[in-house]
């Protein structure tokens, strides 16, 4: 069986508050899965239940075919990297890493060998006798990793492992963690609230909201085909608007803040599809899918919105323009590549047209689901 974790109808209640609401999930061996969502969505609770630190109210957890729902953490072949690293301050790095082997009765010589091997894997061989207080944040994180990996668990759990690091270090560690996963071949389950981190590192992302799974899939499909407006807005940015569907002149039209746009999507036909209500639906498109055209009086062809630039924000690799259209605001991202001419780009107050290809507009139902 290549499935290493199966979660069935897992539920966790804290008094009246529902932390995790009947979640079912399956994780393959060797996968890098990320649980993504804002604080309070249940991702950490779910992780802790897998690790054995919270007892589920109901539901089952299977680890490699074995029911571990009621097992305490010290009896599960799962190890966790804690958000605050939890390095024992009264032990050296080497003693920290060897702790799990020591309490399991592994002979001392073996402990030494395995600790050395794991420390070299994370690049900290020379720090074996240092105390955690002497290390930098990034180094401490690697010790926490080494300590968890040395026991060769079936699954490695990571609770917001990079949130304590500053931006530059974080990006570097994202790559290093991913590389470590690929080298060691363990199954990683990570929790984060940072969507770009999830996209960079994961094989599969599970987006959670209010204790439930909103969508589970690989990063590309999550970005290009979000299942609902929540996912669309959480991962990357999306311009959302609600509108009824109109058919006119052979084209399917929607109204974006009062202006008409053509839409070309298989789920939107000239008749209400499936259970979708005949009334208003939510639609959205990514900022980088729209193109800014400076207004010179004449209306350009294509699928265009007319608006006025309010602010221009410089992001280094891109420029984000905030355009007022009707009574709403649209974000447009322009890539600063070689074809970009700053003199010809729009500034605040300019009248502009936004060109969007009809098949780049995504539909969602009224309540946000697809």
């Amino acid at each position, binding site marked *: 069986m290549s499935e290493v974790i199966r979660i069935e109808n897992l539920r966790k209640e804290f008094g009246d508050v529902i932390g995790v609401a009947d979640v079912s999930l399956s994780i393959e061996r060797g996968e890098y899965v990320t649980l993504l969502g804002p604080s309070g969505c249940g991702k950490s609770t779910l992780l802790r239940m897998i*690790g*054995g*630190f919270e007892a589920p109210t109901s539901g089952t957890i299977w680890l490699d075919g074995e029911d571990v729902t009621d097992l*305490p*953490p*010290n009896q599960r072949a*799962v*190890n*966790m990297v*804690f*958000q*605050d690293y*939890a390095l*024992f*301050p*009264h032990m050296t790095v080497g003693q920290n890493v060897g*702790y*799990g082997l020591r*309490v*399991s009765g592994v002979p001392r010589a073996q402990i030494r060998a395995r600790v050395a091997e794991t420390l070299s894997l994370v690049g900290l061989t020379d720090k074996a006798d240092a*105390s955690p*207080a002497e290390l930098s944040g990034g180094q401490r994180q690697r010790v926490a990793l080494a*300590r*968890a990996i040395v*026991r060769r668990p079936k699954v490695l759990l990571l609770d917001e492992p990079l949130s304590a690091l500053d931006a530059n270090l974080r990006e570097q560690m994202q790559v290093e963690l991913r590389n470590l996963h690929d080298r060691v071949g363990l199954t990683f389950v990570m929790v984060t609230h940072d969507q770009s981190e999830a996209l960079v590192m994961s094989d599969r992302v599970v987006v959670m909201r209010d204790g439930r799974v909103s969508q589970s899939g690989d990063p590309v499909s999550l970005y290009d085909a979000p299942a609902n407006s929540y996912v669309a807005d959480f991962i990357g940015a999306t311009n959302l608007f609600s509108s009824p569907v109109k058919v006119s002149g052979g084209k399917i039209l929607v109204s974006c803040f009062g202006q008409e746009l053509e839409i070309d999507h298989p789920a939107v036909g000239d008749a209400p599809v499936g259970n979708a209500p005949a009334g208003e639906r939510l639609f959205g498109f990514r900022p980088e899918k729209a193109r800014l055209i400076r207004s010179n009086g004449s209306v350009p062809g294509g699928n265009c919105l007319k608006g006025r630039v309010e602010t221009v924000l410089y992001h280094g690799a891109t420029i984000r323009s905030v355009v007022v259209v009707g009574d709403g605001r649209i974000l447009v991202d322009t890539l600063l590549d070689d074809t970009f001419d700053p003199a010809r780009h729009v500034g605040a107050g300019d009248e502009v047209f936004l060109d969007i290809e009809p098949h780049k507009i995504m539909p969602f139902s009224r309540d946000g689901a697809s």
Partner: protein
Amino acid sequence: MTMRVATDAMESRIGRAAAHRRRGAAARRAETWASNAFFYGMVGLVLAFLYIPIAVLIAFSFNSSRSLSWPMTGVSLEWYERLIANEDLLEALWNSLYVAAFATALTLVIGIPAALALDRFEFPGKSLFRKLVLLPIALPGIITGISMLIMFRMIGFNLSLETVILGHATALVSVVVTQVFARLQRLPRSYEEASADLGASGLQTFFLVTLPNIRTAIIGAALLSFTLSFDEIPVTFFLTGRDNTLPMYIWSTLRRGLTPEINAVGALIVVFSIVMITLAVVLTRDKSGRRG
């Protein structure tokens, strides 16, 4: 307005502003001076209030006569010599050490698990338990003393040093509980979770992870408990049998009248206390240098 009149007007305005600033600065300086005077005065007063009596005690322990009048008649070690020869006093001293040692041991054995239970576990009756354990600290010792006295009498237990030990342990367990509990609260729960995650049993986690990290609080609490037991009066007063502790001996001596030997004992106790408190400060400095 001509140029000159304008310039004059401007100059006088600048001059007034400067004078105003000078007055403001002067007022601020006066305010700081007054506040400093107040604080240094108060601190000096409190320190003097606290230490002049102790200084008097130590000074008069070296007085060559029995009088307590100022000025001292001379310097002598007579009272210290008498002290060493005083067998009753030495026996009381030994009793106090014996009682303090065992009482402290008891408070640790009871107090550490109690602190653990309060911090880590939920159980029915927890808030009542917490109130009962922490009660004796603010409660006048006399109540603990007489209530245990009545109980011992009712079950036919004779008063002795052992009843004193039980009394002290009861009165002082809250010292250990509050100190250890405070330290436990500062210990991140993730340490114990990580230890369990890595395969350690509950007992292993306690001895390998928890205990080393609360060690300083335990030492501090033990030292404080020992010192307080050594000096304990209200509970001891009601639970003492034939053998005296040091405070009881001093008490009975005082009833007979003031003797300068008491000054000598007092001076020695002051020295002993300074040693204990220095030990406590030094030993409870954890790696980061913070107190306890």
